[in-house]
């Protein structure tokens, strides 16, 4: 039976550390998920079987606002299985080459002036896809959803006017 699981997710800074506290304007924030696919998924639709079909997946990087529990960011990426059955994928620049290249929490859109916010969760979702003649089709029930990894920003405007009703 085909399976696709996210073994864990990490929030990684510019030092390659998996941390939960970020400077919203200066730290890099890379969202990383570790995936394990069953062998049969990688074989399904391989080029040996049919040149017009390729096995792949759709990965979704979600950020959830702890204040509202809303998904405030939903980035989707699709790819073939190019790294074997055990692989990682990450979104966001945490390598530079300069600090200006980092995908900071602010650049993720997490700079907020809502009181009580500043805590966010990263959730990864992955599902099997096959590309068939330029169309993506789902041919198995293999999908995985990670636990939510919560992380926080170390500065946010405590004294800004409240937004919404409290």
């Amino acid at each position, binding site marked *: 039976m085909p399976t696709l699981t996210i073994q864990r997710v990490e929030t990684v800074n510019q030092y390659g550390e998996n941390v939960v506290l970020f400077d919203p304007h200066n730290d890099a924030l890379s969202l990383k998920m570790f995936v394990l696919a069953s062998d049969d998924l990688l074989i399904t639709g391989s080029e040996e079987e049919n040149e017009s079909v390729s096995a792949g997946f759709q990965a979704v990087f979600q950020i959830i606002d702890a204040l509202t529990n809303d998904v405030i960011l939903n980035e989707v990426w699709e790819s073939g299985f190019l790294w074997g059955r055990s*692989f990682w994928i*990450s979104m966001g620049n945490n390598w530079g080459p300069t600090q200006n290249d980092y995908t900071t929490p602010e650049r993720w859109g997490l700079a907020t002036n809502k009181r009580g916010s500043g805590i966010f969760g990263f959730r990864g979702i992955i599902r099997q896809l096959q590309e068939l003649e330029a169309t993506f089709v789902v041919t198995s029930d293999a999908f995985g959803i990670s636990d939510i990894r919560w992380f926080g920003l170390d500065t946010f405007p405590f004294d800004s006017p409240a937004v919404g009703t409290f």
Partner: protein
Amino acid sequence: MSVPDLPTREDILIAVQHGPEAVIALVDRLVNQIRELQGRPQDQTQANAQSRRKPFHEKPIRAGSVP
């Protein structure tokens, strides 16, 4: 009178994928181009808003095998 640099369908799709800020920036640019064609100054509120907005930051993907 110059012809405005109209966005293509692909430009619009990319902006939609990048979220509300990118769509707003695209619309603001169009509105200001129309204002220029009409010989009117740029909407200062929009200009200020644009200057406050940072350009959309691409979020690059990396991947690799786990040994």
